[in-house]
């Protein structure tokens, strides 16, 4: 199984080499065989006697992250869709994409996506699943932005990236929680431990995070907004990623985890509610669009909502219908996207207002669209697969019950909402079909003169429409062989469901279908009259406006925040650094009870010390109020010499010597420097700034004083000074303890201190001598 994931990735590395010879043979021809072989590999598993297959490859065993692949009915359904439609899309793209395009890029991204998607559906390990999940987001980003010179493409790619990665990351959070709760990284093992998960206090978080990932990926309300903008991608990409595969990854995730959560009531409420709202909103909004692909995008959103709702119902029939509809939707939506691509390719526009009457020019395409849209609308004809799954959807919506009042209310409302959404589905399906192909052609509006597409381009949609018809005619062929296995994987129990076309007139779902068709026809015919409703409902409440506003606001706010403190003013930075140190130190000291003021261990104070300190304090105050540079420097010198006297008083002759000389040298240097400096100016600062400066400096001084006293008051262990006093002579050979420490016991420090001095001297030399213009 692992080779199905690795082969596309490995072969993708060779695509750039192949694309060098694209002048002769289209790169897609080589690529086509990859999904085709994978499809053939997976088709051998289909059959009534299917049983799950598991494979494990070591990756990071110490973290429990291994390439665990698990092929059950659900994975098989998705793997077949991915490889089968992948092959058809590559075939289609050979004719759709010109040889002048950057084909190497396109097929590398596409193969990367295919591998990632296969990885998502086959993984049994949550972290491997997450890895492939993000890889689908990234490759989808690259594919949407394929025509990167279009501003809209870049916008759409970025939007889809932001939303799906947001969901992906929250899903990752959910996976981490799941792993912590169950102590395993295997999904199957988690399903076995579902009681542990359901009794965990983290359950709401886990469910919320995972559903957020699924909803963003599957374009559920209100995260659906990225999908219509993703239509800037080349049409094969839209057909593949944004109808058949990637957007179903979210459905896959919900289905995969539904054995764990399906008995939890909030799962039913959230998934069903979001799904049914997405169904209604997507189908309602689809009618408003004027771009063929935008109609299909909203249609995809709405169909995904319908499947999501069925997964939320969680009853046997609903799960079966969901699986069935995943298959059906992939067939008809894939073909419809290809039809839209053909129309675009052959007429030069996708704007439905310019199109019309194309059936005479594109008869085959028109016929294909007819089957596709009728199947999407769920028109009751025995050769359309969409009808069966829609009828099963109605049937499953009727048989719901919830434990709480709210769930009960929702369960009762769902059939009505389902009918509402389906009416609009019917309307946009017919709008799509008739708007494009019926009526009178206005060739003047079209950029190109339309003519039927080349046969190669038609092959893929024909195969898909054949799928629509064949599944419609013989639904029970796919039923037992693999739909039942897929449903079993979701539900955990074997589901026997016989699909029949005719149940008799007293069958409620049929009556619902008839209501849909009847009301839908009325709405289609009167569409112009009620189209004004769209100015009211999305109007100012558009979610895109919200998304753009959030992005703009975030930009503005972060800019404001940064500009508010990154002013370039050193004064402010110093104030922030000192103020923050002050606050943090004070809080830490207060919380830990660090302030410890004691006066019992102090030496006597002599009059000479007091007088020196008084002089120093006066001098320090003098520097603050000094009016010019030179006097400030000289007064500062007084403080320095005062320190030297204190060193003498406290019996530190080395320090006193050094301090005296250094103080002198420093004063001389200051005078040398300030000779060049402008006169000290009176800074005109506001009273508020001055007050803050004063508060910070006094506060910091007071705090450091308190810290110093506290440090002196709390001696936790004896000083090591005795050791130095004892060993200075016998070990160091000197009586001067300070010097012995400096050059012998801790000579290492001294070595680097003189290095610092040397660096400083060289820096000053180079600053002055190597300035601009100097020789």
């Amino acid at each position: 199984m692992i080779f199905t994931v690795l082969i596309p990735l490995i072969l993708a590395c060779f695509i750039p080499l192949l694309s060098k010879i694209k002048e002769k043979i289209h790169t897609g021809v080589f690529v086509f065989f990859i999904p085709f072989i994978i499809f053939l590999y997976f088709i051998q598993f289909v059959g009534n006697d299917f049983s799950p297959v598991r494979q494990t490859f070591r990756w990071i065993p110490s973290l429990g992250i291994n390439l665990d692949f698990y092929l059950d009915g659900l994975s098989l359904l998705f793997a077949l869709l991915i490889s089968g439609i992948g092959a058809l899309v590559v075939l289609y793209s050979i004719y759709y994409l010109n040889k002048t395009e950057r084909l190497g890029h396109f097929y590398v991204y596409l193969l990367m996506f295919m591998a990632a998607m296969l990885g998502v559906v086959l993984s049994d390990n949550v972290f491997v699943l997450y890895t492939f999940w993000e890889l689908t987001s990234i490759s989808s980003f690259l594919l949407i932005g394929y025509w990167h010179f279009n501003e809209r493409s870049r916008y759409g790619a970025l939007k889809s990236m932001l939303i799906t990665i947001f969901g992906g990351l929250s899903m990752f959070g959910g996976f981490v929680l799941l792993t912590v709760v169950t102590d395993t990284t295997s999904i199957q093992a988690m399903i076995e431990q579902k009681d542990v998960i359901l009794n965990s206090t983290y359950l709401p978080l886990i469910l919320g995070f995972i559903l957020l990932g699924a909803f963003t990926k599957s374009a559920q309300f209100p995260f659906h907004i990225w999908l219509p903008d993703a239509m800037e991608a080349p049409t094969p990409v839209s057909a593949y990623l944004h109808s058949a595969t990637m957007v179903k990854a979210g459905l896959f995730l919900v289905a995969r985890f539904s054995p764990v959560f399906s008995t939890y009531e909030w799962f039913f409420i959230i998934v069903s509610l979001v799904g049914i709202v997405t169904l209604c909103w997507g189908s309602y909004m689809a009618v408003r669009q004027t771009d063929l692909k935008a109609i299909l995008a909203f249609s995809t959103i709405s169909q995904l909502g319908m499947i999501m709702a069925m997964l939320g119902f969680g009853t046997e029939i609903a799960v079966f219908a969901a699986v069935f509809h995943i298959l059906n939707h992939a067939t008809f939506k894939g073909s419809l996207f290809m039809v839209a691509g053909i129309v675009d390719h052959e007429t030069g526009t996708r704007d439905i207002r310019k199109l019309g009457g194309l059936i005479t020019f594109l008869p085959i395409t028109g016929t294909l669209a007819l089957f596709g849209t009728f199947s999407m609308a769920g028109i009751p004809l025995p050769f359309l697969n969409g009808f069966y799954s829609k009828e099963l959807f109605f049937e499953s919506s009727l048989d719901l019950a919830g434990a709480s009042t709210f769930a009960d209310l929702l369960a009762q409302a769902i059939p009505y909402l389902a009918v509402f959404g389906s009416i609009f589905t019917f309307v946009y399906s017919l709008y799509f079909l008739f708007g494009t192909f019926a009526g009178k052609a206005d060739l003047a509006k079209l950029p190109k003169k339309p003519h039927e597409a080349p046969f190669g381009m038609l092959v893929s949609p024909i195969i898909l429409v054949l799928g629509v018809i064949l599944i419609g005619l013989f639904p029970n062929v796919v039923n037992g062989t693999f739909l039942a296995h897929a449903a079993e994987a979701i539900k955990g129990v074997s589901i026997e469901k016989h699909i029949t076309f005719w149940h008799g007139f007293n069958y409620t779902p049929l009556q619902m279908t008839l209501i849909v068709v009847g009301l839908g026809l009325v709405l289609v015919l009167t569409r112009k009259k009620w189209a004004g409703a769209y100015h009211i409902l999305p109007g100012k409440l558009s979610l895109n406006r919200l998304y753009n506003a959030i992005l703009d606001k975030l930009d503005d706010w972060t800019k404001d925040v940064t500009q508010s403190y990154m002013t370039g003013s050193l004064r402010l930075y110093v104030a922030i650094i000192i103020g923050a140190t002050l606050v943090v130190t004070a809080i830490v000291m207060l919380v830990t009870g660090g302030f410890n003021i004691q006066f019992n261990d102090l030496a006597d104070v002599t009059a000479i010390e007091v007088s020196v300190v008084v002089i120093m304090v006066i001098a320090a105050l003098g520097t603050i109020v000094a009016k010019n540079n030179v006097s400030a420097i000289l007064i500062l010198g007084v403080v320095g010499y005062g320190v030297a006297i204190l060193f003498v008083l406290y019996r530190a002759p080395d320090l006193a010597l050094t301090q005296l000389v250094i103080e002198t040298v420093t004063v001389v240097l200051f005078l040398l420097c300030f000779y060049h400096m402008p006169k000290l100016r009176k800074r005109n600062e506001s009273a508020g700034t001055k007050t803050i400066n004063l508060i910070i400096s006094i506060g910091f001084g007071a705090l450091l004083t308190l810290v110093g006293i506290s440090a002196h008051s709390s001696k936790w262990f004896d000083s090591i000074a005795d050791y130095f006093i004892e060993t200075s002579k016998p070990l160091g050979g000197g009586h001067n303890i300070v010097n012995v420490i400096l050059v012998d016991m801790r000579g290492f420090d001294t070595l680097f201190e003189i290095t610092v001095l040397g660096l400083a001297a060289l820096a000053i030399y180079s600053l002055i001598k190597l300035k601009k213009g100097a020789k």
Partner: protein
Amino acid sequence: MFKPNDLILRTTTSLIAFILLGFAVYLLLAGHNSPGGGFVGGLMTASAIVLMNMAYGMETVNKILPINYRTLIPIGLLIAVATGIGSFVFDVPFLSHTFGHFTLPIFGEVELATAMLFDLGVYVTVLGVTMTIILTIANDQEDGLEGNEIGEDSDS
């Protein structure tokens, strides 16, 4: 041209500078047993040279002491590091010092410590650093305008 009569300064300098230099050497040598050491000794030597610079002018002093003080910095650092590396020869950790008592011809019995060599490195470095900084900044007063003029010329 106004020329100050600094005879007194010059005369006293020639005396004081040598006392200072002698004191500096004393500080360096005595450092191990009394207050002093390489750091103060280096600063004191620098003070003596600065004093001579002030009294006689830089050009004169440059003739008497043709030393490039910048080269003293790496020399001093090398000495200090070399004393550290020297301890590897005796298979002891970096910067391990030792000392011993020797009887020399003139001085009689003296104590010699390898730490003194390290202190010598400190002395040379500090002397080089202080002189480099002071001379660089002091010279800048004279060169500053000239440098700017050259810059302007080359720009135009």
